[in-house]
Protein backbone atom coordinates (compact mmCIF):
# COMPACT_ATOMS: atom_id res chain seq x y z
CA UNK A 1 0.00 0.00 0.00
CA UNK A 2 1.21 3.47 -0.73
CA UNK A 3 2.17 5.40 2.36
CA UNK A 4 3.46 8.54 0.75
CA UNK A 5 2.70 9.65 -2.76
CA UNK A 6 4.33 12.68 -4.30
CA UNK A 7 2.55 14.05 -7.36
CA UNK A 8 3.90 16.71 -9.73
CA UNK A 9 5.90 18.30 -6.98
CA UNK A 10 7.50 21.58 -7.91
CA UNK A 11 9.61 23.58 -5.53
CA UNK A 12 11.07 26.91 -6.52
CA UNK A 13 12.21 30.08 -4.90
CA UNK A 14 13.72 33.37 -5.94
CA UNK A 15 17.29 34.26 -5.20
CA UNK A 16 19.32 37.30 -6.19
CA UNK A 17 20.53 35.48 -9.30
CA UNK A 18 17.09 34.41 -10.47
CA UNK A 19 14.54 31.73 -9.93
CA UNK A 20 15.90 28.53 -8.43
CA UNK A 21 13.92 25.54 -9.59
CA UNK A 22 14.99 23.02 -7.01
CA UNK A 23 12.41 20.34 -7.73
CA UNK A 24 10.64 19.93 -11.07
CA UNK A 25 7.67 17.64 -11.49
CA UNK A 26 8.70 14.87 -9.20
CA UNK A 27 6.43 11.86 -8.83
CA UNK A 28 7.29 9.22 -6.29
CA UNK A 29 5.59 6.55 -4.23
CA UNK A 30 6.77 4.97 -1.03
CA UNK A 31 4.98 1.86 0.12
CA UNK A 32 4.57 0.71 3.69
CA UNK A 33 7.75 -0.81 5.02
CA UNK A 34 9.59 0.19 1.88
CA UNK A 35 12.87 2.05 1.75
CA UNK A 36 13.27 4.36 -1.19
CA UNK A 37 16.63 5.89 -1.91
CA UNK A 38 17.09 9.16 -3.68
CA UNK A 39 20.55 9.52 -5.07
CA UNK A 40 22.13 12.35 -6.92
CA UNK A 41 24.97 14.81 -6.86
CA UNK A 42 25.30 17.61 -4.39
CA UNK A 43 22.95 20.43 -5.26
CA UNK A 44 20.46 18.44 -7.30
CA UNK A 45 17.56 19.20 -4.97
CA UNK A 46 17.48 16.00 -2.91
CA UNK A 47 17.52 17.72 0.45
CA UNK A 48 14.93 20.27 -0.63
CA UNK A 49 12.70 17.43 -1.74
CA UNK A 50 13.02 15.87 1.73
CA UNK A 51 12.36 19.13 3.52
CA UNK A 52 9.36 19.95 1.35
CA UNK A 53 7.60 16.78 2.51
CA UNK A 54 7.63 18.04 6.10
CA UNK A 55 7.04 21.61 4.93
CA UNK A 56 10.20 22.80 6.60
CA UNK A 57 11.25 25.13 3.81
CA UNK A 58 11.31 28.84 4.43
CA UNK A 59 8.19 30.81 3.70
CA UNK A 60 9.39 32.42 0.48
CA UNK A 61 9.70 28.99 -1.13
CA UNK A 62 6.85 27.98 -3.42
CA UNK A 63 5.77 24.39 -3.29
CA UNK A 64 3.25 23.12 -5.84
CA UNK A 65 1.77 19.73 -6.49
CA UNK A 66 0.52 17.20 -4.00
CA UNK A 67 2.17 15.27 -1.22
CA UNK A 68 -0.24 12.57 -0.17
CA UNK A 69 0.43 10.95 3.17
CA UNK A 70 -2.06 8.18 3.91
CA UNK A 71 -4.30 9.82 1.34
CA UNK A 72 -4.12 13.26 2.92
CA UNK A 73 -2.47 16.17 1.13
CA UNK A 74 0.18 17.53 3.46
CA UNK A 75 0.43 20.76 1.51
CA UNK A 76 -3.17 21.58 2.44
CA UNK A 77 -2.83 21.04 6.19
CA UNK A 78 -2.70 23.94 8.61
CA UNK A 79 0.53 24.65 10.49
CA UNK A 80 -0.95 23.13 13.66
CA UNK A 81 -2.01 19.95 11.90
CA UNK A 82 1.39 19.78 10.27
CA UNK A 83 3.09 19.97 13.65
CA UNK A 84 1.24 16.86 14.71
CA UNK A 85 2.60 15.03 11.68
CA UNK A 86 6.19 16.09 12.26
CA UNK A 87 8.06 13.78 14.59
CA UNK A 88 4.98 11.64 15.20
CA UNK A 89 4.00 10.39 11.77
CA UNK A 90 7.00 11.44 9.72
CA UNK A 91 10.35 11.93 11.38
CA UNK A 92 13.53 13.31 9.93
CA UNK A 93 17.12 12.39 10.60
CA UNK A 94 19.53 15.10 9.59
CA UNK A 95 22.91 14.72 8.03
CA UNK A 96 25.13 16.32 10.61
CA UNK A 97 24.66 14.79 14.04
CA UNK A 98 27.21 17.25 15.40
CA UNK A 99 25.12 20.31 14.75
CA UNK A 100 21.68 18.71 14.82
CA UNK A 101 21.70 18.45 18.59
CA UNK A 102 21.33 21.37 20.91
CA UNK A 103 24.64 21.77 22.74
CA UNK A 104 23.06 23.05 25.97
CA UNK A 105 20.50 20.29 26.52
CA UNK A 106 21.25 16.75 27.62
CA UNK A 107 20.84 13.98 25.08
CA UNK A 108 18.06 12.50 27.21
CA UNK A 109 16.11 15.74 27.20
CA UNK A 110 16.36 15.98 23.45
CA UNK A 111 15.46 12.40 22.71
CA UNK A 112 12.49 12.74 25.07
CA UNK A 113 11.23 15.83 23.29
CA UNK A 114 9.06 14.11 20.66
CA UNK A 115 7.36 11.92 23.29
CA UNK A 116 6.66 14.93 25.48
CA UNK A 117 5.29 16.86 22.53
CA UNK A 118 3.18 14.16 20.98
CA UNK A 119 2.36 11.63 23.66
CA UNK A 120 2.35 13.97 26.66
CA UNK A 121 4.17 11.50 28.89
CA UNK A 122 5.38 12.71 32.25
CA UNK A 123 9.10 13.00 32.94
CA UNK A 124 9.53 9.61 34.55
CA UNK A 125 7.78 7.64 31.82
CA UNK A 126 9.45 9.66 29.12
CA UNK A 127 12.84 8.99 30.65
CA UNK A 128 12.19 5.27 30.82
CA UNK A 129 11.15 5.29 27.22
CA UNK A 130 14.26 7.22 26.24
CA UNK A 131 16.51 4.74 28.02
CA UNK A 132 14.73 1.86 26.31
CA UNK A 133 15.12 3.61 22.96
CA UNK A 134 18.82 4.34 23.49
CA UNK A 135 19.30 0.70 24.37
CA UNK A 136 17.65 -0.36 21.12
CA UNK A 137 20.04 1.80 19.10
CA UNK A 138 22.94 0.13 20.95
CA UNK A 139 24.13 3.01 23.05
CA UNK A 140 26.03 1.43 25.91
CA UNK A 141 25.02 2.33 29.49
CA UNK A 142 21.91 4.22 28.38
CA UNK A 143 20.71 5.06 31.89
CA UNK A 144 23.97 6.87 32.47
CA UNK A 145 24.33 8.48 29.09
CA UNK A 146 20.87 10.09 29.01
CA UNK A 147 22.21 12.72 31.37
CA UNK A 148 25.21 13.57 29.23
CA UNK A 149 25.51 16.42 26.79
CA UNK A 150 25.97 16.00 23.03
CA UNK A 151 29.64 17.01 23.19
CA UNK A 152 30.28 14.01 25.41
CA UNK A 153 29.05 11.69 22.64
CA UNK A 154 31.15 10.54 19.71
CA UNK A 155 29.87 11.20 16.18
CA UNK A 156 28.55 7.67 15.76
CA UNK A 157 26.87 7.70 19.17
CA UNK A 158 25.30 11.03 18.41
CA UNK A 159 23.89 9.70 15.15
CA UNK A 160 22.51 6.74 17.08
CA UNK A 161 20.84 9.17 19.46
CA UNK A 162 19.43 11.06 16.48
CA UNK A 163 18.01 7.81 15.13
CA UNK A 164 16.51 7.12 18.56
CA UNK A 165 14.98 10.59 18.52
CA UNK A 166 13.50 9.92 15.10
CA UNK A 167 12.06 6.55 16.02
CA UNK A 168 10.84 7.20 19.54
CA UNK A 169 7.29 8.08 18.52
CA UNK A 170 7.07 5.13 16.14
CA UNK A 171 6.58 7.18 12.99
CA UNK A 172 5.37 5.50 9.82
CA UNK A 173 7.97 7.23 7.69
CA UNK A 174 11.49 8.40 8.29
CA UNK A 175 13.23 10.84 6.04
CA UNK A 176 16.95 10.32 6.44
CA UNK A 177 19.05 13.02 4.85
CA UNK A 178 22.55 11.66 4.35
CA UNK A 179 22.53 9.92 7.72
CA UNK A 180 26.07 8.62 7.38
CA UNK A 181 27.85 11.66 6.04
CA UNK A 182 30.55 12.91 8.34
CA UNK A 183 31.09 9.59 10.05
CA UNK A 184 34.14 7.47 9.45
CA UNK A 185 33.75 4.39 7.32
CA UNK A 186 33.57 1.77 10.07
CA UNK A 187 31.03 3.84 11.98
CA UNK A 188 29.08 4.30 8.76
CA UNK A 189 28.85 0.56 8.38
CA UNK A 190 27.59 0.21 11.95
CA UNK A 191 24.97 2.90 11.48
CA UNK A 192 23.78 1.34 8.24
CA UNK A 193 23.56 -2.02 9.94
CA UNK A 194 21.62 -0.47 12.81
CA UNK A 195 19.21 1.34 10.53
CA UNK A 196 18.56 -1.81 8.59
CA UNK A 197 17.71 -3.62 11.79
CA UNK A 198 15.48 -1.00 13.36
CA UNK A 199 13.59 -0.47 10.11
CA UNK A 200 12.97 -4.18 9.85
CA UNK A 201 11.86 -4.47 13.47
CA UNK A 202 9.52 -1.51 13.39
CA UNK A 203 8.24 -1.85 9.85
CA UNK A 204 8.88 1.81 9.27
CA UNK A 205 9.24 3.14 5.75
CA UNK A 206 12.18 5.31 4.88
CA UNK A 207 13.07 7.89 2.33
CA UNK A 208 16.85 7.82 2.20
CA UNK A 209 18.53 10.82 0.66
CA UNK A 210 22.16 10.17 -0.12
CA UNK A 211 24.96 10.48 -2.60
CA UNK A 212 26.60 7.38 -1.20
CA UNK A 213 25.71 4.50 -3.48
CA UNK A 214 27.13 1.96 -1.07
CA UNK A 215 24.79 3.05 1.69
CA UNK A 216 21.87 3.18 -0.72
CA UNK A 217 22.63 -0.33 -2.01
CA UNK A 218 22.61 -1.68 1.53
CA UNK A 219 19.41 -0.06 2.70
CA UNK A 220 17.08 0.57 -0.21
CA UNK A 221 14.42 -1.48 -1.90
CA UNK A 222 13.99 1.00 -4.72
CA UNK A 223 16.08 3.87 -5.91
CA UNK A 224 15.36 7.07 -7.73
CA UNK A 225 18.17 8.91 -9.44
CA UNK A 226 17.81 12.66 -9.37
CA UNK A 227 19.43 15.07 -11.76
CA UNK A 228 18.79 18.81 -11.38
CA UNK A 229 15.39 18.73 -9.80
CA UNK A 230 13.92 15.74 -11.57
CA UNK A 231 13.90 11.99 -11.35
CA UNK A 232 15.73 10.53 -14.35
CA UNK A 233 15.55 6.88 -13.43
CA UNK A 234 13.55 4.78 -10.99
CA UNK A 235 14.09 1.09 -10.45
CA UNK A 236 14.67 -1.48 -7.78
CA UNK A 237 18.14 -1.63 -6.37
CA UNK A 238 19.28 -4.63 -8.42
CA UNK A 239 18.31 -3.02 -11.68
CA UNK A 240 19.93 0.28 -10.87
CA UNK A 241 23.26 -1.43 -10.32
CA UNK A 242 23.02 -4.31 -12.79
CA UNK A 243 21.06 -2.70 -15.54
CA UNK A 244 21.23 1.08 -15.46
CA UNK A 245 19.42 2.63 -18.40
CA UNK A 246 19.85 6.37 -18.21
CA UNK A 247 23.22 7.67 -19.46
CA UNK A 248 23.49 9.72 -16.28
CA UNK A 249 22.97 6.71 -14.03
CA UNK A 250 25.59 4.83 -16.01
CA UNK A 251 27.98 7.73 -15.72
CA UNK A 252 27.28 8.01 -12.01
CA UNK A 253 28.04 4.33 -11.51
CA UNK A 254 31.14 4.45 -13.71
CA UNK A 255 32.51 7.24 -11.60
CA UNK A 256 32.73 4.88 -8.62
CA UNK A 257 36.25 3.77 -7.72
CA UNK A 258 35.36 0.11 -8.18
CA UNK A 259 34.10 0.77 -11.69
CA UNK A 260 36.94 2.65 -13.21
CA UNK A 261 36.66 6.06 -11.55
CA UNK A 262 35.55 7.65 -14.82
CA UNK A 263 34.07 11.07 -14.21
CA UNK A 264 31.10 12.36 -16.17
CA UNK A 265 32.41 15.15 -18.42
CA UNK A 266 31.18 18.64 -17.59
CA UNK A 267 29.56 19.78 -14.40
CA UNK A 268 25.97 19.49 -13.31
CA UNK A 269 23.96 22.61 -14.15
CA UNK A 270 23.00 25.06 -11.45
CA UNK A 271 19.36 25.03 -10.44
CA UNK A 272 19.01 28.58 -11.70
CA UNK A 273 20.12 27.91 -15.24
CA UNK A 274 18.68 24.55 -16.16
CA UNK A 275 19.17 23.53 -19.81
CA UNK A 276 16.18 23.17 -22.12
CA UNK A 277 14.97 19.77 -23.23
CA UNK A 278 16.66 16.88 -21.50
CA UNK A 279 18.64 18.40 -18.67
CA UNK A 280 21.50 15.99 -19.17
CA UNK A 281 22.02 16.63 -22.89
CA UNK A 282 25.05 18.97 -22.59
CA UNK A 283 26.99 16.20 -20.84
CA UNK A 284 25.50 13.22 -22.65
CA UNK A 285 27.45 11.37 -25.34
CA UNK A 286 24.19 10.05 -26.89
CA UNK A 287 22.56 13.45 -27.19
CA UNK A 288 20.69 14.21 -30.42
CA UNK A 289 18.95 17.30 -31.72
CA UNK A 290 15.73 16.12 -30.13
CA UNK A 291 17.28 16.05 -26.67
CA UNK A 292 18.01 19.74 -26.92
CA UNK A 293 14.43 20.71 -27.62
CA UNK A 294 12.07 18.23 -26.05
CA UNK A 295 11.84 17.15 -22.47
CA UNK A 296 11.68 13.35 -22.33
CA UNK A 297 8.94 11.70 -20.29
CA UNK A 298 9.34 8.76 -17.93
CA UNK A 299 9.30 5.55 -20.01
CA UNK A 300 8.64 2.14 -18.62
CA UNK A 301 11.52 -0.12 -19.60
CA UNK A 302 10.91 -3.07 -17.33
CA UNK A 303 9.15 -4.30 -14.22
CA UNK A 304 9.02 -1.21 -11.98
CA UNK A 305 11.81 0.34 -13.99
CA UNK A 306 11.29 3.79 -15.47
CA UNK A 307 13.72 6.05 -17.25
CA UNK A 308 13.55 9.58 -18.61
CA UNK A 309 15.49 9.25 -21.88
CA UNK A 310 14.72 9.23 -25.62
CA UNK A 311 17.06 6.27 -26.16
CA UNK A 312 14.25 3.96 -25.11
CA UNK A 313 11.50 5.36 -27.31
Amino acid sequence: MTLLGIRNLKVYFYSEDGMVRAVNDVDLDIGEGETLGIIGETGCGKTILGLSILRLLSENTKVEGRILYKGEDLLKLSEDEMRKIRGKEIAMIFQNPLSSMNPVLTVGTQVAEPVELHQHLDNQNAKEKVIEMLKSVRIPLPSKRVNEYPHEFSGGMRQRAMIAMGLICMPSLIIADEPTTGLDVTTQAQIVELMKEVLKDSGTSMLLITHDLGVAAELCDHMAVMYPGEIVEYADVRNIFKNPKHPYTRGFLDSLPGRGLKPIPGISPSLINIPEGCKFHPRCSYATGRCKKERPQMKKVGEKHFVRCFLYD
Partner: protein
Amino acid sequence: MSGTGTMKSRKKLAFQQLKKNKIAIIGLIIIISLAFIALFAPFIAPHDPIEQNLDKRLLSPSGEYPMGTDDLGRCLLSRIIYGARVSLKLGVIVVGIITVIGVTLGLISGYYGGIVDEIIMRLVDVVLAFPGIILALAIAGALGPGLFNVMLALAMVGWTGLARVVRGSVLSVKQKEFVESARALGCSDLHIMTRHILPNVMAPVIVLATLDMAFIILAAAGLSFLGLGAQPPTPEWGSMLNNGRAFIQTAPHLTTFPGLAIMVAVLAFNFLGDGLRDILDPRQQRELKE
Protein backbone atom coordinates in the same frame (compact mmCIF):
# COMPACT_ATOMS: atom_id res chain seq x y z
CA MET B 1 25.82 9.58 38.56
CA SER B 2 28.20 10.83 35.96
CA GLY B 3 25.42 12.93 34.42
CA THR B 4 25.11 15.16 37.41
CA GLY B 5 28.85 14.81 37.78
CA THR B 6 29.42 16.37 34.39
CA MET B 7 27.00 19.15 35.18
CA LYS B 8 28.95 19.78 38.33
CA SER B 9 32.22 19.61 36.53
CA ARG B 10 31.03 22.18 34.01
CA LYS B 11 29.98 24.54 36.75
CA LYS B 12 33.15 23.73 38.63
CA LEU B 13 35.14 24.54 35.53
CA ALA B 14 33.43 27.90 35.18
CA PHE B 15 34.04 28.60 38.84
CA GLN B 16 37.68 27.64 38.56
CA GLN B 17 38.08 30.08 35.71
CA LEU B 18 36.34 32.69 37.78
CA LYS B 19 38.73 32.00 40.63
CA LYS B 20 41.66 32.61 38.35
CA ASN B 21 40.21 35.99 37.46
CA LYS B 22 41.20 37.92 40.60
CA ILE B 23 39.36 41.10 39.73
CA ALA B 24 36.11 39.22 39.16
CA ILE B 25 36.54 37.50 42.50
CA ILE B 26 37.09 40.83 44.22
CA GLY B 27 33.90 42.08 42.57
CA LEU B 28 32.00 38.98 43.65
CA ILE B 29 33.22 39.25 47.24
CA ILE B 30 32.22 42.91 47.43
CA ILE B 31 28.79 42.14 45.97
CA ILE B 32 28.23 39.30 48.42
CA SER B 33 29.31 41.57 51.32
CA LEU B 34 27.00 44.33 50.10
CA ALA B 35 24.12 41.89 49.87
CA PHE B 36 24.92 40.64 53.35
CA ILE B 37 25.06 44.19 54.70
CA ALA B 38 21.78 45.07 53.02
CA LEU B 39 20.07 41.95 54.27
CA PHE B 40 21.18 42.32 57.89
CA ALA B 41 21.20 46.11 58.02
CA PRO B 42 19.15 46.32 61.27
CA PHE B 43 21.71 44.14 63.06
CA ILE B 44 24.80 45.80 61.65
CA ALA B 45 23.90 49.47 61.75
CA PRO B 46 25.02 51.08 65.02
CA HIS B 47 22.17 53.61 65.05
CA ASP B 48 18.73 54.21 63.62
CA PRO B 49 19.31 55.72 60.15
CA ILE B 50 16.49 58.26 60.38
CA GLU B 51 16.64 59.14 64.02
CA GLN B 52 17.62 62.78 64.37
CA ASN B 53 19.87 63.98 67.15
CA LEU B 54 20.20 67.72 66.86
CA ASP B 55 22.80 67.88 69.65
CA LYS B 56 25.21 65.91 67.53
CA ARG B 57 25.05 67.68 64.16
CA LEU B 58 27.88 67.47 61.63
CA LEU B 59 30.22 65.50 63.85
CA SER B 60 33.45 64.24 62.34
CA PRO B 61 34.08 60.49 62.32
CA SER B 62 34.63 59.21 65.82
CA GLY B 63 34.34 56.03 67.84
CA GLU B 64 30.61 56.34 68.34
CA TYR B 65 29.91 57.58 64.83
CA PRO B 66 32.54 55.88 62.59
CA MET B 67 31.55 58.01 59.60
CA GLY B 68 30.35 61.04 61.51
CA THR B 69 26.87 62.56 61.49
CA ASP B 70 24.97 64.73 59.03
CA ASP B 71 23.29 68.11 59.43
CA LEU B 72 20.42 66.53 61.34
CA GLY B 73 22.65 64.49 63.59
CA ARG B 74 21.92 61.15 61.91
CA CYS B 75 24.57 58.45 61.90
CA LEU B 76 26.14 58.43 58.44
CA LEU B 77 27.38 54.83 58.65
CA SER B 78 23.90 53.58 59.49
CA ARG B 79 22.47 55.58 56.62
CA ILE B 80 25.01 54.14 54.20
CA ILE B 81 24.29 50.62 55.44
CA TYR B 82 20.55 51.11 54.92
CA GLY B 83 21.34 52.82 51.62
CA ALA B 84 22.82 49.55 50.35
CA ARG B 85 19.34 48.10 50.79
CA VAL B 86 17.73 50.77 48.67
CA SER B 87 20.34 50.66 45.90
CA LEU B 88 20.58 46.89 45.64
CA LYS B 89 16.83 46.37 45.77
CA LEU B 90 16.32 48.97 43.10
CA GLY B 91 19.12 47.52 40.98
CA VAL B 92 17.80 43.97 41.20
CA ILE B 93 14.23 44.98 40.41
CA VAL B 94 15.14 47.20 37.47
CA VAL B 95 17.63 44.72 36.03
CA GLY B 96 14.99 41.99 36.44
CA ILE B 97 12.46 44.03 34.52
CA ILE B 98 14.81 45.08 31.73
CA THR B 99 16.10 41.53 31.37
CA VAL B 100 12.58 40.19 30.92
CA ILE B 101 11.64 42.95 28.47
CA GLY B 102 14.94 42.90 26.59
CA VAL B 103 15.16 39.12 26.28
CA THR B 104 11.52 38.74 25.23
CA LEU B 105 11.64 41.46 22.61
CA GLY B 106 15.08 40.33 21.42
CA LEU B 107 13.89 36.74 21.04
CA ILE B 108 10.77 37.74 19.13
CA SER B 109 12.65 40.18 16.98
CA GLY B 110 15.44 37.80 16.07
CA TYR B 111 13.27 34.73 15.65
CA TYR B 112 10.46 36.12 13.52
CA GLY B 113 12.48 38.70 11.61
CA GLY B 114 10.77 40.73 8.90
CA ILE B 115 8.31 43.42 9.88
CA VAL B 116 8.21 42.43 13.58
CA ASP B 117 11.98 42.73 13.77
CA GLU B 118 11.85 46.04 11.96
CA ILE B 119 9.30 47.52 14.37
CA ILE B 120 11.10 46.37 17.52
CA MET B 121 14.52 47.45 16.33
CA ARG B 122 13.27 50.88 15.25
CA LEU B 123 11.74 51.24 18.70
CA VAL B 124 15.16 50.43 20.15
CA ASP B 125 16.72 53.06 17.87
CA VAL B 126 14.20 55.64 19.05
CA VAL B 127 14.99 54.95 22.71
CA LEU B 128 18.72 54.91 22.03
CA ALA B 129 18.56 58.18 20.13
CA PHE B 130 18.05 59.98 23.43
CA PRO B 131 20.89 59.97 25.91
CA GLY B 132 19.65 57.34 28.38
CA ILE B 133 20.04 59.33 31.56
CA ILE B 134 18.38 62.42 30.07
CA LEU B 135 15.40 60.37 28.93
CA ALA B 136 15.15 58.77 32.37
CA LEU B 137 15.36 62.25 33.85
CA ALA B 138 12.53 63.43 31.64
CA ILE B 139 10.37 60.41 32.44
CA ALA B 140 11.05 60.63 36.17
CA GLY B 141 10.45 64.37 36.02
CA ALA B 142 7.14 63.90 34.24
CA LEU B 143 5.98 61.16 36.59
CA GLY B 144 7.06 63.08 39.65
CA PRO B 145 9.77 62.27 42.18
CA GLY B 146 9.86 58.94 44.00
CA LEU B 147 11.81 55.69 43.98
CA PHE B 148 9.12 53.80 42.11
CA ASN B 149 9.06 56.33 39.29
CA VAL B 150 12.84 56.23 39.05
CA MET B 151 12.68 52.48 38.66
CA LEU B 152 10.07 52.84 35.96
CA ALA B 153 12.11 55.47 34.14
CA LEU B 154 15.30 53.39 34.26
CA ALA B 155 13.45 50.28 33.12
CA MET B 156 12.04 52.14 30.15
CA VAL B 157 15.48 53.17 28.88
CA GLY B 158 17.56 50.21 30.06
CA TRP B 159 16.15 47.30 28.04
CA THR B 160 17.51 48.32 24.63
CA GLY B 161 21.03 46.94 24.98
CA LEU B 162 19.76 43.54 26.04
CA ALA B 163 17.20 43.43 23.25
CA ARG B 164 19.90 44.13 20.68
CA VAL B 165 22.35 41.61 22.03
CA VAL B 166 19.72 38.90 22.34
CA ARG B 167 18.44 39.57 18.83
CA GLY B 168 21.95 39.27 17.44
CA SER B 169 22.57 35.98 19.21
CA VAL B 170 19.19 34.62 18.15
CA LEU B 171 19.96 35.44 14.53
CA SER B 172 23.02 33.23 14.63
CA VAL B 173 21.50 30.46 16.77
CA LYS B 174 18.34 30.11 14.70
CA GLN B 175 20.43 29.18 11.64
CA LYS B 176 21.80 26.16 13.47
CA GLU B 177 20.67 22.75 12.37
CA PHE B 178 19.32 21.78 15.75
CA VAL B 179 16.62 24.42 15.37
CA GLU B 180 15.54 22.87 12.10
CA SER B 181 15.76 19.48 13.70
CA ALA B 182 13.51 20.67 16.54
CA ARG B 183 11.01 21.95 14.01
CA ALA B 184 11.10 18.60 12.23
CA LEU B 185 10.14 16.97 15.53
CA GLY B 186 7.00 19.07 15.67
CA CYS B 187 8.05 21.77 18.13
CA SER B 188 6.04 24.98 18.07
CA ASP B 189 7.69 28.38 17.62
CA LEU B 190 7.26 29.19 21.30
CA HIS B 191 8.81 25.89 22.31
CA ILE B 192 11.77 26.41 19.98
CA MET B 193 12.31 29.94 21.25
CA THR B 194 12.14 29.15 24.93
CA ARG B 195 13.65 25.71 25.09
CA HIS B 196 16.15 25.62 22.27
CA ILE B 197 17.22 29.17 21.54
CA LEU B 198 16.96 30.88 24.92
CA PRO B 199 19.51 28.71 26.77
CA ASN B 200 21.93 29.27 23.92
CA VAL B 201 21.79 33.06 24.23
CA MET B 202 21.99 33.26 28.02
CA ALA B 203 25.75 33.85 28.30
CA PRO B 204 25.77 37.42 26.95
CA VAL B 205 22.55 38.13 28.86
CA ILE B 206 24.21 37.26 32.17
CA VAL B 207 27.21 39.45 31.39
CA LEU B 208 25.13 42.37 30.24
CA ALA B 209 22.72 42.13 33.16
CA THR B 210 25.65 42.27 35.59
CA LEU B 211 27.12 45.30 33.86
CA ASP B 212 23.66 46.88 33.73
CA MET B 213 23.41 46.51 37.51
CA ALA B 214 26.34 48.93 37.79
CA PHE B 215 24.78 51.36 35.35
CA ILE B 216 21.38 51.25 37.05
CA ILE B 217 22.82 51.81 40.53
CA LEU B 218 24.81 54.77 39.25
CA ALA B 219 21.89 56.19 37.30
CA ALA B 220 19.50 55.78 40.24
CA ALA B 221 21.97 57.55 42.51
CA GLY B 222 22.29 60.27 39.89
CA LEU B 223 18.53 60.76 39.68
CA SER B 224 18.28 60.81 43.45
CA PHE B 225 21.08 63.34 43.58
CA LEU B 226 18.99 65.54 41.34
CA GLY B 227 16.10 65.15 43.75
CA LEU B 228 13.96 62.87 41.56
CA GLY B 229 14.55 59.58 43.33
CA ALA B 230 14.35 58.65 46.97
CA GLN B 231 12.70 61.30 49.09
CA PRO B 232 13.92 62.25 52.54
CA PRO B 233 14.26 60.75 55.01
CA THR B 234 14.93 57.54 53.00
CA PRO B 235 18.65 56.85 53.25
CA GLU B 236 19.80 56.73 49.63
CA TRP B 237 23.38 57.25 48.53
CA GLY B 238 22.55 59.72 45.78
CA SER B 239 20.31 61.90 47.89
CA MET B 240 22.85 61.77 50.75
CA LEU B 241 25.42 63.17 48.35
CA ASN B 242 23.06 65.94 47.44
CA ASN B 243 22.35 66.60 51.08
CA GLY B 244 26.06 66.84 51.92
CA ARG B 245 26.77 69.17 49.02
CA ALA B 246 26.00 72.26 51.09
CA PHE B 247 28.54 71.28 53.75
CA ILE B 248 31.30 70.14 51.42
CA GLN B 249 33.79 72.59 52.85
CA THR B 250 32.93 72.24 56.53
CA ALA B 251 32.02 68.55 56.65
CA PRO B 252 33.52 66.75 53.61
CA HIS B 253 32.76 63.33 55.11
CA LEU B 254 29.09 63.87 54.24
CA THR B 255 29.89 63.61 50.53
CA THR B 256 32.99 61.45 50.64
CA PHE B 257 31.46 58.35 52.23
CA PRO B 258 28.27 58.08 50.12
CA GLY B 259 30.41 58.76 47.05
CA LEU B 260 32.75 55.95 48.02
CA ALA B 261 29.81 53.64 48.62
CA ILE B 262 28.46 54.30 45.13
CA MET B 263 31.91 53.84 43.62
CA VAL B 264 32.55 50.55 45.40
CA ALA B 265 29.17 49.10 44.42
CA VAL B 266 29.47 50.16 40.78
CA LEU B 267 33.05 48.95 40.51
CA ALA B 268 32.16 45.61 42.05
CA PHE B 269 29.47 44.93 39.45
CA ASN B 270 31.74 46.10 36.65
CA PHE B 271 34.56 43.85 37.86
CA LEU B 272 32.26 40.84 38.03
CA GLY B 273 30.68 41.66 34.67
CA ASP B 274 34.04 41.92 32.96
CA GLY B 275 35.21 38.70 34.56
CA LEU B 276 32.07 36.87 33.47
CA ARG B 277 32.50 38.16 29.96
CA ASP B 278 35.99 36.73 29.80
CA ILE B 279 34.78 33.37 31.09
CA LEU B 280 31.62 33.08 29.01
CA ASP B 281 33.21 34.22 25.77
CA PRO B 282 33.14 31.07 23.65
CA ARG B 283 36.21 32.07 21.68
CA GLN B 284 38.36 32.15 24.76
CA GLN B 285 36.89 28.89 25.93
CA ARG B 286 38.05 27.26 22.74
CA GLU B 287 41.54 28.58 23.30
CA LEU B 288 41.51 27.10 26.76
CA LYS B 289 40.52 23.70 25.46
CA GLU B 290 43.30 23.74 22.93
